[in-house]
């Protein structure tokens, strides 16, 4: 009796949850489907969901006319570059705060977090001006630096919470056995910290990939990543839904896949440990 009620309830939950899940996912699904339609089918009334002649034409058109590869390369360079640079700077800082805490550690952590709250638009012109003066406006290097700086607090925080979970006794044991600081970091700490570092890298690549204030305002033709490439579709030209969809699908596909792997870390990374 109780069991069949439970099964019924489970079936109902399943139906409702799937319906809502598909509804939320629908815009993405629709974009992916439209990218395989012809421009005519893309705007047909009534709309077609699956029953159309699948074509790859939009992809070849987008690839041909827009130098897509360069935008893609810029996105990869900026996202990966800023993350690696950030990790190199953040690992020692997070390590020292987690294992050699002082009475100021908490204040330093909170202060770092507070730099993340600085609204970008408030410092837009100074950064713009500095970039011109340094000759790095519209350059990948410039964006790597800016995105590294805006994500550095998140990287440090995530690493800090991961490092905190490594039991201190293990380090003490290693020290007792006569391990030097270098050996301690290299052979004891690093293997245990790799999963945490990996999740941090993943989340930060996603954040940098999707960043759309600095990438739009500090780039023009040379260093523009995919965010700017897509923004160039904001002024319509004739029939372009299918091409827009193809371009969009190519821009979001890599990060959707990475994102699904990192969903658990998302909470930790974006709430600064306030929700576990």
């Amino acid at each position: 009796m109780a069991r069949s009620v439970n099964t019924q309830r489970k079936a109902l939950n399943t139906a409702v949850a799937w319906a809502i899940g598909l509804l939320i996912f629908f815009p993405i699904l629709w974009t992916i489907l439209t990218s395989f339609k012809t421009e005519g089918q893309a705007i047909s009334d009534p709309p077609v969901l699956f029953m159309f002649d699948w074509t790859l034409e939009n992809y070849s058109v987008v690839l041909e006319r827009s130098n897509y590869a360069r935008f893609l390369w810029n996105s990869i360079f900026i996202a990966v570059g800023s993350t690696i640079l950030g990790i190199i700077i953040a690992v020692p800082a997070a390590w020292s705060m987690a294992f050699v805490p002082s009475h100021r550690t908490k204040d330093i952590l909170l202060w770092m977090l507070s730099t993340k709250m600085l609204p970008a638009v408030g410092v837009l012109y100074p950064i713009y001006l500095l970039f011109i003066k340094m000759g790095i406006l519209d350059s990948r290097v410039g964006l790597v630096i800016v995105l590294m700086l805006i994500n550095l607090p998140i990287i440090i925080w995530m690493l800090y919470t991961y490092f905190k979970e490594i039991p201190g006794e293990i380090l003490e044991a290693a020290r007792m056995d006569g391990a030097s600081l270098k050996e301690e970091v290299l052979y004891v700490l690093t293997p245990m910290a790799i999963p945490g570092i990996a999740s941090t890298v993943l989340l930060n690549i996603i954040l940098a990939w999707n960043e759309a204030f600095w990438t739009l305002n500090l780039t023009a033709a040379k260093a523009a990543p995919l965010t700017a490439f897509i923004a160039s579709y904001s002024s319509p030209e004739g029939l372009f839904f299918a091409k827009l969809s193809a371009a969009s699908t190519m821009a979001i596909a890599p990060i959707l896949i990475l994102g699904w792997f990192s969903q658990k870390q998302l909470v930790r990374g974006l709430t600064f440990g306030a929700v576990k």
Partner: protein
Amino acid sequence: MATKASRSAARLMMAPAVILLLGWMLVPLTMTLWFSFRKYLPLRGGDLGWAGFDNYTRFVTSSAFWPSVMATLTVVGGVLIITVCLGVLLAILLDQPMWGQGVVRILVIAPFFVMPTVSALVWKNMFMDPTNGLFAHLFKFFGAEPIAWLSQASMPSIIMIVSWQWLPFATLILLTAIQSLDSEQLEASEIDGAPPLKRFWFIILPHLGRAITVVILIQTIFLLSIFAEIFVTTGGAFGTKTLTYLIFQRVLESQNIGLGSAGGVYAIILANIVAIFLMRIVGKNLDN
């Protein structure tokens, strides 16, 4: 116990991060403050000297200021209400036993990973286009007159787009919080015969209190500075010019740096008010 040597080593290891962030904070901030007191028009004569508090008063007395404050509050408030309410319901739903929970979770979270320019343009064109958008088809199907979403209902449209982007974030955090709820307590109340609504009101909601606060604070900080969604949809027209967008236009479009910088200082103060509350919660959490 940390030795003296390891302490100084620790300080050395922290130095690059601290110096970089200090520079990143102080240099542009000082420049913004400096410019905000100057009459500075790069395209019309350059730096024309001190302006006192002129920029500050002109920024708040310009006709665009109050509408932009209202637009900002509407977007932030609207998105917060939608994402928190729906997020709580969705989180409770996703916490129930069901088949294919993992897949549903992935479907719900997906919008968060879509870059802002893509989601804004997809919604603008493929859903909200007055002739070829899906909504137009839907309206016609039911015999209604399709509307030009982004000009006739610009604010609700922007709120809808941004809510779609942020609902996954709220849901995911609230779901994490619900899953940490002691299930014995819930079962006990179920056995005692507490109806679902009471269970929700007296057990689940209080437990979610802190998670909801965190969602509200973090989202507010991000929502105060949404940019791309407005940039590629309305370009600030039709009453969607938020404070962030207004400052962007003053600085980069009309190149009135003094005025824009004064606006920037206001935006920084506003963000800091929100930030203080967030930091307090995060700081409390660091202690335990």
